[in-house]
């Protein structure tokens, strides 16, 4: 598996650390309430299909990136810097 780092180019999967769903970019407001926070902290979708995940280019440029991939076909569809992603 190879991931297209937006800075370094296509690199081997072993260079990356996996963080999980890119949901982490959608932190609720501090006063959003218990339900929103419980959802944010504990609940994750488990999609069969296109998913967006946070990866860290640990062995390379040290950028956090959002990778879009398909969990059914294993296609890697693209990647962008987490800094600009929503």
């Amino acid at each position, binding site marked *: 598996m190879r991931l297209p780092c937006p800075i370094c180019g296509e690199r081997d999967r072993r260079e990356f650390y996996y963080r999980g769903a890119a949901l982490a970019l959608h932190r609720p407001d501090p006063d959003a309430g218990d339900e929103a926070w419980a959802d944010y902290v504990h609940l994750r979708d488990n999609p069969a299909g296109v998913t967006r995940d946070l990866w860290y280019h640990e062995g390379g440029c*040290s950028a956090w990136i959002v990778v879009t991939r398909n969990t059914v076909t294993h296609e890697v569809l693209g990647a962008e810097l987490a800094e600009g992603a929503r």
Partner: protein
Amino acid sequence: MTELLAKTACDGLLSVTAGPFTLSEEPVAPLTSLMPYKGRDKALSAALEAAHGVKLPGVNRSTSKAGISVLWFGRGQFLLVGAGPDGSLAEHAAVVDQSDAWARVRLEGAGADQVLARLLPVDLRAASFKRGHTLRSPLGHMMASVTRTGVNAFSIAVFRSMAATLVHDLKTAMEGVAARG
């Protein structure tokens, strides 16, 4: 007070040879990381050129002139090698001394790219990785900086604490490639 002796990172470990390959320690040089403040890359490049004669390189590239070089060193990071940083750089970037933090070695010999192919998951052959090209990639489990400095020469840096492992891994790979003749 106790007299402290200055030792290089690879003191007592290098140099070693195997077949056509030689691994030696790079000469001691001042190393400084430069992390430009937001939107200040151009200003930093101009200050670098005025003070040290070298511009800021692009991603996966290095610049050098008269023994001073600047390596791309990661996202928003550059490494100035061979000269202490001019005070003017601090106006545009976070400037941090790294001189004793890295073990830097030089791998030379025809087919040196085959030695590195055993240790890094990137294509370092001359067709895609030319003189002056540089990148960050793990060498074994060590987060390394690799720069091609010549037709058959590479400069490699890892954290200083890993100097012995770096030398061991490279020496083993050198012997392995050399044994294939």
